[in-house]
């Protein structure tokens, strides 16, 4: 089971702060995205935006990063703090 979190504008667009995904592991970030889109087709337009960032276990990663069972995956828009 993978725990997936969403933040900021993406959380509002999906109307979802967190979701659990059943997925065979290890898998890639891309595969998690595909699993989410398969379950929620309306999310594709938001999750497939080029600027969406991903963190695994609270560290920024790219789409090929390998995910293990129990990892925390987060998707969010570019950051705007400071």
């Amino acid at each position, binding site marked *: 089971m993978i725990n997936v979190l969403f*933040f900021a*504008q993406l959380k509002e667009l999906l109307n979802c702060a967190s979701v659990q995904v059943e997925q065979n592991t290890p898998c890639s970030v891309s595969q998690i995205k595909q699993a989410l889109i398969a379950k929620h087709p309306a999310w594709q337009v938001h999750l497939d935006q080029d*600027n969406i960032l991903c963190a695994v276990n609270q*560290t*920024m990663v790219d789409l090929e990063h390998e995910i293990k069972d129990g990892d925390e995956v987060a998707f969010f828009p570019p950051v*705007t*703090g*400071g």
Partner: protein
Amino acid sequence: MTTSISIKVQTDDFDVAQEYAALREDNTQDGAIVFFAGLVRDMNQGKNVTGLFLEHYPGMTEKALANIVDQACERWPLSRVRVIHRVGQLHISDQIVFVAVSSCHREAAFDACHFIMDFLKNQAPFWKKETTQQGDHWVKALAKDEASLKKWNAPHDRK
């Protein structure tokens, strides 16, 4: 050298005088303190702003800030670093962020403070939602902020 590091993510306001005092207290080795304070402006990206909400990713935020500070410590001789970033509802002219460093010399202090702010703006998971008279909207990330990291690729080390 061992750096004394303080990183806080909080809803409460902060007192710059207290932070400055903490950088100076029992500090006989440093000749320079540089700090940056970021504030909420009334105008941004062409809109009149009336307030600001700051969301973050609890857990990752602290980790990302610690990582940025560690990189600065590897690059410059810093003896103390203090970072505060506020979250939650803020109002016009409120303080948002504070970054301060102390070092033996001013060049290292200026550069390290600037470096931490540039990376904080690009890598720490905070998101601003502005309130304007026309409604609320999420602030867009600017290409100039990402471009600001490029200047740190060139060797700047002054150790």
